[in-house]
């Protein structure tokens, strides 16, 4: 059999399903109680600190953070099913998303003991909210071109520059900023970058909204004007920012949020077909099949990560197929929906939100063009 692009699958066992059902039951109660209204793309667009803290109280945050740092010390597989259940029901999970997915693992791997003690317990309780500062104006997919400058000063560094597309920066406590700590060497473009932990309330930080095409405010431009970063808020090694940032990509790219952002819309469409408000069409079955297969594939990548197996290419496959699919679901339902025919508030609301969010699906976290290049590299073509 050929070398596999994606790790072999695994079957979910009852111990895991039990956790899944526990989360599901809690969420059903929350919906019934009106604690939140199910929506699409909630890991970007639905921010609810109370709900986040409640998840922390129930032990569903900081799941892979060791207990000595206030986490749950559980597995990636357990985090996977909790994440799936939160996403499919369209729960408001944006407040803790970045911290839970990227910041926690990065701190665990690269942080000092003091940094871990300082941030991980708060992250696990859902009390410390993080953002991430990678992109810059004009940098696009070419992260090595970042121009935010880190200047060595007494006791630390001064950061000057502009980060864009920082989701939730206006609500977050801190963010990780990638900055150029040594001049650009055109021969080694990825050298000389460093990650910093930046307090978003520090002097010199200005946060301005970037309003999205639907009129919503999720993203921000974060200006750093000579912001002082003490030495103990350098993350990892000076000059190793690129390696640090890219080492965690498999975790960022293969998660269920790359498949399920529009699941609530798919579910509403299934209901509308059953009710006769949308025409029965075999496309529904095709999309449900793809979502089911992607669920298996994403789970397989999680199982590989749990075993510390390399899964960068597989993660790129999940992200390309998954983000394409979650966008195609939006377009598919739109082709069935006849405006003026009948008023289906729930479906219309979900559909319009899905359409407005869709362009981001295949851009954020590495565009699908870049990722198909990553897959080609994994196949030995570059």
């Amino acid at each position: 059999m050929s070398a596999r692009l994606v790790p072999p699958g695994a079957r979910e066992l009852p111990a895991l399903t039990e956790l899944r059902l526990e989360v599901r039951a809690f969420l059903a109660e929350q919906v019934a109680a009106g604690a939140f209204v199910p929506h699409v793309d909630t890991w970007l667009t639905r921010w609810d600190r109370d709900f986040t803290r409640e998840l922390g109280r129930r032990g569903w945050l900081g799941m892979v953070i060791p207990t000595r740092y206030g986490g749950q010390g559980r597995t990636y597989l357990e985090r996977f099913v909790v994440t799936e259940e939160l996403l499919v029901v369209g729960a408001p999970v944006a407040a803790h998303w970045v911290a839970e997915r990227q910041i926690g693992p990065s701190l665990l791997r690269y942080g000092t003991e003091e940094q871990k003690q300082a941030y991980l317990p708060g992250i696990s309780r859902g009390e410390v909210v993080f953002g991430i500062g990678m992109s810059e104006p004009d940098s696009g997919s070419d992260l090595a071109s970042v121009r935010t400058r880190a200047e060595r000063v007494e006791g630390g560094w001064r950061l000057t520059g502009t980060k864009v597309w920082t989701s939730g920066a206006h609500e977050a406590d801190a963010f990780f900023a990638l900055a150029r700590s040594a001049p650009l060497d055109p021969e080694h473009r990825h050298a000389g970058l460093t990650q910093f932990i930046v307090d978003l309330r520090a002097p010199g930080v200005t946060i301005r909204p970037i309003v999205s095409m639907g009129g919503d405010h999720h993203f921000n431009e974060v200006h750093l004007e000579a912001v002082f970063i003490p030495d103990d808020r350098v993350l990892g090694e000076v000059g190793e920012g690129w390696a640090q940032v890219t080492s965690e990509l498999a975790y960022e790219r293969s998660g269920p949020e790359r498949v399920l952002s529009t699941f609530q819309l798919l579910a509403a469409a299934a209901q509308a077909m059953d009710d006769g408000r949308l025409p029965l069409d075999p496309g529904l079955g095709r999309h449900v099949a793809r979502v089911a297969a992607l669920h298996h594939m994403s789970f397989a990548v999680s199982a590989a990560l749990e075993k510390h197996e390399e899964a960068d290419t597989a993660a790129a496959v999940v992200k390309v197929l998954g983000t394409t699919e979650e966008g195609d679901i939006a377009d598919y339902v739109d082709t069935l929906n006849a405006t003026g025919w009948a008023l289906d508030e729930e479906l219309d609301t979900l559909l319009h939100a899905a359409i407005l969010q869709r362009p981001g699906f295949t851009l954020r976290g590495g565009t699908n063009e870049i990722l198909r290049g990553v897959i080609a590299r994994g196949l030995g073509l570059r």
Partner: protein
Amino acid sequence: MAAPHDVHDAGRLAAPTTPDPDLVEVLTDLFADYRDTRPTPTAVVDLDRELWQRLEDLGMTRLTGSESSGGSGGGWVDAAALLGLAAAAAAPVPLAEHDVLGGWLLEAAGLPNDGGLRTVCRPDPSGVALNVTWARDASRVVALWEDRDEWRVADVPADRIGIEERRNLAGEPSDTVEFDVDDLEAGMLVPHEIGEQFHLRGALARSAQVVGAMERIVEIVLTHVRERHQFGRPIGRFQAVQHLVADIASETALARAATDAAVARAAASDWQDPGMLFAVGVAKSCVGHAASVVVRGSHQVLGAIGTTLEHELHTLTKPILARRSEYGSLHDWDESLTTLAASAGHDRLWTLVTTGRAKPFHDHRSHAP
């Protein structure tokens, strides 16, 4: 755009169908000026009364009305050009509703047209119409009403209707309108064909608007990929980007060809050609599928910047999607075409493709296996 010119004896074989070049020039200048001076895009789109006035002064708001009724006597070829150019400028004006549909219904019903801003709708038996674009801005609403197999047109003043304000995906007014059924019953009787034609005219008007918006997107995309640099060169140099752009432009061209063909047929026959259902269906289907490619591809090429409120792109992509689902969903139109094609069968499918006609229309459900 050059006027028709014939070489050889081609003129007796094929007739080019192009809009009045003077009209196109005037409109191109007007909308270019509008685009240069309009405010930054907002999420909520309201009627631009100043632009409407400028269009009215040029006779554009009554372009297709007969001259005897105060219109400019323009045909569908010119009307489609106007709709396309206005859509390319994302101009918030009800040209389709007021003139192409509303004005036509009034004329068909022999009702007077005072030129006051109108929109159109088809209320249900209880007198309610959903998703009526620009209803809150209209002085009167033209209602096409089917009542026990009779069709009536009523021109109802704004103060006699109830409006629940809503907005469509594009942020435009798309209101729920409630009529007094007595007002509808007092409407003028019109022939049965008007009911069918209304749907076709609405669908083709929407197609013309969507194609116009897609053509503007092609321009935006081309400018972007030439100016935007990544990895040290314009992104338009990357083969993957070139292919995305080629696909966007090609689908737009196909949608344009389908729409122009339907418009030409409508103009040549004043909508009397029995092949209009097929021709409009081809346009609506090709435009609708092109919309998927163009909206998706253009946002992908433009990247994050194209998703911001201040960028022009969404002022085109959102209306494209809002309009493609009006006057029949893409699925509905593909089903109609399927019915026509299956009914034509093996031996008459090509006749259907070339003339829009085959065997008589019949309900396909009776043929389900």
